[in-house]
């Protein structure tokens, strides 16, 4: 089983909703409040530095994009700056994430958990390991990760970003985005010409209905098909639920590749 921790720089954006374990028996599913981990001083400082670096890169990016006249040049610039940002992110956050990874693994092992997910997606039950992880992170001693991997879990995960790169999904999403951008532009022009609020309301209603209809006809069938395939693959792996990789903190079964193969 592939151990996995996904504590990212975007930790602080997660919604804080306290799950309550009233009446629930202990389970081997744990959850971590990644948003709270993100507020620890060491993460705040690193994120601040990353924000400053990003602001600088943004300025350089805007200048570089103005000098890039062909589409190839623009793609090269985008890729170059993404790479530079990732390098900076790695340099600043990698040591912190490494330590957090070890802390989560250690607590998971000591509590015999099979999987740890982000607190945001658990609204009842589960074991909150946030405080134990914080205590370990704040202690000066080095954290030794456990040698054993967690027990097989009934929770699987997929990387939806990776799935969205499958040609038929990517093409459908890109076409929809392009169409919506054009519709937005023409609707903006209509709004600017509208004489009163009633006219504006009507334009808005038509816009929303058109987008909703197109979503239902073009995207929803693909979304349904993908969900159905994920469900089928999950059943084959004897899983109960599949969550997004972004919500998975530790453990769990990665079925992304199998889903990709099934969708091709």
């Amino acid at each position, binding site marked *: 089983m592939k151990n996995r921790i996904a504590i990212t720089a975007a930790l602080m954006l997660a919604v804080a909703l306290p*799950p309550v374990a009233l009446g629930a028996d202990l389970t081997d599913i744990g959850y971590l409040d990644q948003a709270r981990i993100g507020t620890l001083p060491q993460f705040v400082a690193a994120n601040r530095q990353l924000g400053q670096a990003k602001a600088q890169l943004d300025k350089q990016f805007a200048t570089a994009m103005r000098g890039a006249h062909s589409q190839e040049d623009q793609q090269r610039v985008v890729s170059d700056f993404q790479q530079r940002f990732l390098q900076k992110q790695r340099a600043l956050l990698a040591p912190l994430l490494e330590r957090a990874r070890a802390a989560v693994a250690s607590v998971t092992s000591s509590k015999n958990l099979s999987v740890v997910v982000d607190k945001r997606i*658990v609204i009842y039950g589960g074991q909150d390991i946030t405080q134990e992880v914080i205590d370990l992170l704040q202690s000066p001693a080095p954290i030794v990760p456990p040698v054993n991997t967690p027990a097989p879990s009934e929770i699987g995960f997929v990387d939806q970003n990776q799935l969205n790169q499958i040609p038929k999904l990517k093409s459908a999403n890109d076409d929809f985005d392009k169409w919506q951008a054009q519709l937005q532009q023409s609707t*903006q022009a209509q709004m600017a010409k509208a004489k009163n609020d009633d006219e504006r309301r009507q334009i808005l209603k038509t816009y929303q209905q058109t987008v909703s209809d197109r979503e239902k006809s073009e995207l929803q069938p693909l979304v349904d098909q993908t969900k159905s395939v994920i469900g089928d693959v999950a059943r084959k792996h004897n899983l109960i639920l599949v969550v997004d990789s972004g919500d998975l903190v530790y453990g769990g079964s990665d079925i992304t590749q199998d889903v990709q193969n099934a969708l091709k």
Partner: protein
Amino acid sequence: MRSSSALCAAGIAVALLSSATACARAPRADDATVRGIGYVRLEEVVKKHPLYGQLAQIDSDIDALSLSTLPVAIPRSGAEFAQQTKELNDELRAAQERANGIIAQKQSDYQRREQEAINAAITAAGEKPPSAPAAGMQTTASAQAAAVATQANQDFRSYQEAVIAQDREATAGVTSKLEDRANRQFAQKANELQQSESAQALELASHDSAQRLALRTKLSNLALDDAARNDVKGQLAAIDRKELDEMTVVRNRDRATLNAFQSQLRAQTSAEIAKEVGAIHAQTQAKLQQRSSEVSSQVASQIRGLGTGSSAGLSPATQAKIQQIDAQYKAQFKTDVGKTIADYNETKKALDARFAALNGAATGAQGAAGRQLDQLHKERSDLYNQIVAQVQRETQSVAAARGLKVVFIDVVAPAGGIDLTNDVAKDVESLHE
């Protein structure tokens, strides 16, 4: 009576049968495909919440505002910003040099004309103008006087630049402080209105709760025919519509209140900014005029010290006449220079506005729309979290009753587990009651 009892008995039998079938089909918490895990399709439940109408309205407002706002101007790069700042600084420096050149030229003209008037006065009095050696000395003194004037002008320009930099900094500080205050006031008002709308929506739902409950009870009567069932459903829908209409009126009123408040804030803030910035500019102008006047007096005094326009050996009457001429030319010079400084200040004012626009100090429609959009996003997020917290509370009792150990939301795909969506949605819907 008999047929009614029979119907009732049949109804109970059907109810028991369907209940038994439902029990047989419903998965249990300890099933192999459940293992104590449940899930809720959050977005479905959110749609059943009494405050969902309000959430949808905010979404609609966000769409409307996004579509009404003109595309954002392409942001300037660091280099472009620096280049435009440099161009503006160059224009300001050119305006300063132009003004200073004119002042220096006027100073020289007035000195020459004053000297000519003094010489004419001495000749008219039948007295002797300065002798040849004295005239030679005067040529040297004139050269020294020109050097003094040049140095004084350079010093004045440095002072001018420093004062203008202070002026610009103070203007930006005041503008930013007043705009921040206005933004805080707007956010506070929007928050108050949003909280009041939430309270009214819940109050409205609870006001109709008895009627709604009675209609739901009727609907649960299996003996209802299709027409009667549709009628009851229609009545329920009418209550929903009535609540939605009433809330739309409230929201439109609040939106209008907020728009009026924003206009008032904008007008008030602009007036305060204009007042404070006006005071800063007036101070700057006063400082520059004072320094200009001081420099002129200083130059005149130094030039007198160098011996130009020496009145030694002249009669008291001629000396008095010379003093009168001197005072007259100084007064004329001051008035004339005042006009040049006023012209310069006009140019500077126009350049200041361009500096302000470059630094984003000007409150344009784009900025206001952006702030309103941010506010709407915040309102939406607060309301959504309020709804989700309620959903969470309802889920706890449902999950505990079903013997589940853990319940998830935002699941990508279920392969087992118990779907609590309908049960939680019913409980959330009953918040109307």
